[in-house]
């Protein structure tokens, strides 16, 4: 149990805690616990196949590539499809290399803002980042503050993720377990499990893709070195 610090500027802290403890003195009946043998989620047998399938369901794009050169070509293609304007890139050696390789018409002439220079500009056309892990069960990518910060995955209309097949984990439980084991929050203030493009169904329950965040979420998923 953690030690209690008394905060002088919070007079109600002890009062609320006192009320909680007084309430908890009432005994309640504890019903029986769940039989541990029960399996809540279907186990994931083929993570890559499952991830690709869930990506489709989540309205995100997943491009499977064999090597770095193919990934660069894929990136160039995505960038070419976007309007002119600045792109924001997580400052990481692997992404610098990828950008260099993709340095064709798509990138040249486009201003690049690196995460080491600060937050992405409001008018960024795309952001390019890495991910911590990919989750097959839900077709999700886990990003942290280390992946170019918080805005990198939400500010621009297109978010591109460069990932490797080896980063696939079967399910949400494994991914969350990894956050705990690697003590991610000891050096990150933020993490996010992203499962598709931003969306809303607030008007007549009709699905609209691209609400306040990216309309497109592209995963360039590389299998080779």
């Amino acid at each position: 149990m953690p030690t209690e610090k008394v905060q002088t500027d919070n007079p109600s802290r002890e009062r609320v805690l006192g009320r909680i403890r007084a309430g908890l003195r009432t005994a309640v009946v504890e019903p029986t616990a769940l039989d541990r043998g029960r399996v809540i989620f279907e186990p994931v047998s083929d993570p890559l196949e499952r991830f690709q399938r869930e990506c489709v369901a989540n309205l995100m794009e997943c491009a499977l590539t064999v090597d770095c050169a193919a990934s660069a070509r894929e990136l160039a293609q995505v960038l070419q499809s976007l309007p002119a304007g600045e792109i924001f890139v997580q400052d990481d050696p692997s992404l610098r290399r990828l950008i260099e390789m993709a340095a064709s018409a798509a990138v040249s002439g486009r201003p690049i803002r690196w995460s080491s220079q600060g937050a992405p500009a409001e008018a960024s056309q795309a952001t390019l980042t890495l991910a911590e892990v990919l989750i097959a069960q839900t077709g999700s990518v886990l990003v942290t503050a280390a992946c170019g910060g918080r805005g990198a995955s939400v500010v621009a209309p297109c978010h591109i993720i460069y990932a490797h097949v080896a980063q696939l984990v079967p399910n949400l439980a494994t991914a969350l377990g990894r956050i705990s084991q690697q003590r991610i929050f000891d050096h990150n203030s933020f993490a996010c499990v992203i499962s598709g493009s931003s969306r809303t169904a607030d008007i007549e329950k009709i699905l609209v893709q691209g609400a306040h965040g990216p309309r497109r979420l592209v995963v360039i998923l590389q299998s080779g070195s």
Partner: protein
Amino acid sequence: MSTAAQRFLHDAAEKSADLMHREIIRRGMDSYDAAHLKGRARIKDWEAARQKCQEIKREAVNHLDRYLLQFEEKVTARGGHVFWAANGEEACAYVTNLATRLGVRTVVKSKSMVTEEIHLTPALEKAGIKVWETDLGEFIVQLREEPPYHIVTPAMHLNRGQIAKLFREKLDPAITTDDPVELMAVARRKLREAFFAAEMGISGANFLVADAGVIAISTNEGNGRLCTSVPRIHVVVTGIEKVIPRLEDLAVLWPVLATSGTGQGITTYGTLIGGPRRRGEADGPEEFHVVLVDNGRSQLLADAEQREVLHCIRCGACLNICPVFRHVGGHTYGTTYPGPIGSVLTPHLNGIKEFQHLSYASSLCGACTSVCPVKIDLHHHLLQNRRNAVSAGANKPSERWMFRAWRYAMLRPQSYELGGWAMRKALRLIYRLGLAGSAFDPMQVWNCYRAPVPLPVESFRAQWRKSVRSNGDSAT
């Protein structure tokens, strides 16, 4: 009768008869029902998932002090601030003072029912601060100057035409379309300015994770992401019951919340935030405050029957399935939390005398209990609330006398039989005189909306004695 009850009766009568409202809600709920069923099918053992979620919440709530302190310690160690508010006024005062002290002029808010509960927005506005609701549905109801209609889909009572008209009047007279894609684009453009101008972002939290010391927010639009990324101050306002023990608990809570809320397999953004921006991070708020709101919740802990009401994860499933909600709509309840969970919770939070009528405004069909993802026995709690209301003397004296007379008759089979016979005879006479539904009709309320009940000359027991008992065949 309390004023809240009078208002409820009045609004319920009006809304129930509003066929356009009924049609909009039915269409919305039909699409939710389909998605919800599909979503549930994606989970291999839905019942096991519900039970797991119930266990997680029970463990958290039964050790609430310990888990809240664990959460607080972690957040504080990272430079975040945790404020404990005994009630809504304290919470509002804390946030308003903070905003004033740090020179905040504009606030962007992502969806949070707790901020509705404590009336935070009016408090900030009173201090001269501009507040923008940024969830599309919340933005719409804010423009209409009305509270959210539903805890998950705040503007589900409006159709696209009504929203287009609203946007035309309030945002841009040049809007000609009523296409939801275009309407979203209009809101996006408008709110972008707000996100990048605001000094403070306010969010709720779906969960407070004790072992990791982080808040978890589930959103689809990305507005919650922007509120917690762009402004330099982030304030989280949340109820004390939102704490869960372990980060891994989200592996089941997240999919179950998404399935129950919207029918999705998982919400688009499952955001975890543990403190202010750290050194070396590209962006993020410099200040991180968590306001833990009690506001009556700790009283429920002492209620052995109803402590589990604190397990609620605010998914909205009980509202969606509730036939009463489907007919009277969210605003009629006149409470922050409408629908079954609101009818259970509100008498506890806002007073049993003022709000006991909500516990009665249910047919006790139990649909809510059957869908609740944390297995709260909602309709049973409504029954307990009714019992508590009677014990507290909150009901009409005439009703008390009626049930006393009823008990007298029911304990004496002969008076029951005589009473029944006399009643049928009297009603037959009244109806023969053409007075059905009039002030002379004891069944007036029933007969206002229905054809009169059948009034046989002989009760079953009379027929039993005469013929049915002795000879089955003669009865056929």
